[in-house]
């Protein structure tokens, strides 16, 4: 345990050091994350951390096949988990959610926030051997914005009105209005920089400038990559070869880790963590996940259009019991629509302490002294949401609310519940964006994402201001207030932030967890 404490201390020191440097003059040249284990906040840094060894091959079990390897033409998480290793972006996010340099070494923005100038590295090569220039950056964003490409993420970038390249290593973006999330929007996998000459065949033959180059993709079987020798950072990556193997059956994934057929299982189900920690030759690393799980309430549907009923629901649910009963203790309770890992998180966990007596009073006050009957829609095949719903139904029964559980297949769920808003209560999760705006703007009344039918003009105004403000302090105030408003109005029951759990063979070192859904293998190496 002492060793673990030492590691925690070292990690904390590094995070603090990182925060301090982040406050200093920006931007920094080269990123902290990829300089190798001496300078990087790998999961086990410290004086005795072993030096990384070069070579070897790694096999990672993935739950779903990629949806092609063209980063501009998909929203599939399964694709972006892998493409981080094939493509680079102008900036990247580190494990502590800070924006770091990637292809751009530095950047500056005009006073009005409308012009962004990026200075690019001059030592970047694509896998086809050609050097990357500003023209490739310009082309990549033009391709994303081209209606012909039909990029599902085009809307994130349509505030770009002009992209200029004053020289080969400078790009200037002109925006139609300031966008607070602009910089972090450039760090997602779908903002990858690609070479024009390979654009038409990226889906099956990806060409990027990333640390690994493409070897083969056998659909429904595996994706194989090998080390790219002209990657712009020296020393990384360490591995010679990486194979992502599709194993969709969860027990089969874990068995293949135990037999050593795969080295890493990136998403271990909560119920399997304890067993895996005991298994010989296997380590489990855990970190709070950049996402939340909630019980969504249809605020427009009686009796939940009554604030007292929604508050009663909040008092009636014991979040710690949900975490224990449905997630085997793997999660932390939350009180608002932001995960604790976010810089913008406000702790509201004491807003509605577990108090069934208070819940019954509120229900009686609202005219339901004997409770009522309702239904909770549960999305199949997401067993963790289904289990949350089961535990919640049990707790609601104690205050007189009889909840019928209705399990609905995902495709049907999306049409009826999420897009169709035809539900009363449902368990769901929201994940993985870097800026608070995409997390919190789903409650803006005219947005299609407002599936909880929340309607509050004051909230809408705050969201608008937050999305364009580039005063960090003001933004913190705005998003804190928005989180408080949601909690006060008891728009949903904010349950928990899950933990990301990765199962690895003992010999695998340097695996890092990121606030966005990527498997970055630059820092990973194998003890031989």
């Amino acid at each position, binding site marked *: 345990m002492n060793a673990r404490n030492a590691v925690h201390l070292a990690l904390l020191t590094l995070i603090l050091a990182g925060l301090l440097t982040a406050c200093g003059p920006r931007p920094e040249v080269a990123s902290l994350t990829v300089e190798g284990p001496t300078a990087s906040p790998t999961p086990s840094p410290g004086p005795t951390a072993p030096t990384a060894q070069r070579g070897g091959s790694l096999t990672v079990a993935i739950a779903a096949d990629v949806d092609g390897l063209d980063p501009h033409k998909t929203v599939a998480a399964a694709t972006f988990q892998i493409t981080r290793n094939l493509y680079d972006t102008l900036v990247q996010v580190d494990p502590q959610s800070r924006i770091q340099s990637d292809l751009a070494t530095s950047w500056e923005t005009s006073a009005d926030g409308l012009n962004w100038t990026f200075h690019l590295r001059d030592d970047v090569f694509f896998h086809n051997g050609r050097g990357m220039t500003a023209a490739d950056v310009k082309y990549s964003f033009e391709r994303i914005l081209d209606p012909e490409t039909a990029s599902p993420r085009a809307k994130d970038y349509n505030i770009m009105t002009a992209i200029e390249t004053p020289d080969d290593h400078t790009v200037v973006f002109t925006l139609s209005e300031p966008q607070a999330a602009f910089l972090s929007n450039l760090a997602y996998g779908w903002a990858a920089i690609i070479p024009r000459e390979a654009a038409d065949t990226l889906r099956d033959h990806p060409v990027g400038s990333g640390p690994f180059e493409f070897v083969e993709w056998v659909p429904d079987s595996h994706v194989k990559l090998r080390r790219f020798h002209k990657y712009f950072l020296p020393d990384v990556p360490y591995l010679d070869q990486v194979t992502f193997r599709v194993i969709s059956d969860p027990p089969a994934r874990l*068995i293949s880790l135990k037999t050593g057929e795969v080295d890493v299982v990136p998403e271990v189900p909560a119920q399997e963590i304890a067993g895996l920690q005991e298994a010989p030759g296997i380590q489990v690393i855990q970190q709070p996940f950049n996402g939340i799980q909630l019980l969504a309430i249809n605020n427009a549907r009686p009796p939940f259009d009554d604030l007292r009923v929604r508050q009663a629901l909040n008092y009636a649910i014991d979040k710690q019991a949900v975490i224990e009963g449905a997630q085997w203790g793997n999660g932390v309770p939350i009180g608002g629509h932001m995960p604790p890992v976010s810089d913008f998180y406000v702790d509201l966990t004491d807003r509605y302490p577990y108090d069934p007596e208070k819940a019954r009073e509120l229900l009686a006050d609202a005219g339901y002294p004997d409770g009522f009957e309702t239904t909770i829609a549960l999305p199949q095949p997401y067993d963790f949401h289904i289990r949350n719903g089961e535990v919640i139904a049990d707790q609601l029964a104690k205050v007189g609310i009889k909840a019928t559980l209705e399990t609905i297949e995902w495709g049907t769920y999306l049409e009826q519940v999420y897009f169709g808003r035809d539900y009363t209560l449902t368990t769901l999760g929201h994940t993985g964006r870097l800026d608070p705006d995409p997390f919190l703007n789903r409650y803006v009344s005219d947005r299609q994402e407002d599936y909880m039918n929340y309607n509050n003009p004051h909230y809408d105004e705050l969201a608008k201001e937050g999305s364009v403000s580039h005063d960090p302090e003001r933004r913190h105030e705005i998003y804190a207030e928005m989180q408080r408003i949601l909690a006060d109005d008891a728009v949903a029951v904010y349950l928990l932030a899950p933990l990301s759990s990765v199962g690895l063979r003992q010999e695998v070192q340097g695996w890092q967890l990121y606030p966005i859904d990527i498997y970055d293998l630059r820092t990973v190496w194998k003890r031989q």
Partner: protein
Amino acid sequence: MNYLWRRFPSLLLTLFLISLVTFVVVQVVPGDPAQIILGTEAPPEALADLRAQLGLHRPLPLQYLSWLTGVLRGDLGVSLRHGRPVATLIAERLPVTLSLATLSLSLAVLLAVPLGILAATHQHSALDYGVLLLAQAGLALPSFWIGILLILLFALSWRWLPSGGYVPWGESPLEALRSLVMPILALGLPVAGVLARLVRASMLEELSRDHIRTARAKGLSETQIIVRHVLRNALIPTVTLLGLQLGFLLGGSIVIEQVFALPGVGRLVLFAINNRDLPLIQGLVLFIAALVVTINFLVDMAYTWLDPRISLENKHGS
């Protein structure tokens, strides 16, 4: 040949109706491929563009007609999720599923026929009861459960076989076989159970027939009787069952391919349905239907070989 020509129009009609029913069912079932692609975290503003790009904005009859005309030209269309021709996707995965199905079926036949014969010829003996017990067990245990047990034993405890995945035959026949051993057992054993019971029962029925008593009276040896008189007749219901079991095997392969991470047609079916990938669903259903229809046809042909008294010409006429 005449028989074939007479059956052909009804076969085509069957396939047409199957495709129409599939299309209607997929439309009636809720779920929109564009919504599934975008999920809950993508900007919903992209929904309309995506629907247009996928061709989902066109009127339904038009969508069906354009698919049908494509099929008549030999083009099964393009998968919404994979963005590649449906025929190519099926062709890529076919070797896995065909290997799995034919080898499982072969295993079932090789196990069940001798055991069934032995049990029938030694009725009420310990051997007979042993076979019945095994067959009953095979019948009662679901494939996926056998699969998981096999993985625990052969992959996790003994480390003899890979726990999943597939190696193409062309790459390494030995590794291909190793990757298929457990799936074949998991899928083939339940079929063997059904088959062994049937072989035994139909053998017993044949053995009690008058002409067998005559044959015995003529002084034919027991082996001659079994091989020449009993087995052939007893195999007719067996062949019928084999044809029917192929449907079971295709259904079972959906589950087994999932358990053993095999990139086969079964996994593709599941993927297509979960994603409401209509062209892929249509193509797969049509393909599988055509396969089953062909098998049934071959089964009919096999009857004439097994029992010359059965004439397909007459059968059809009656």
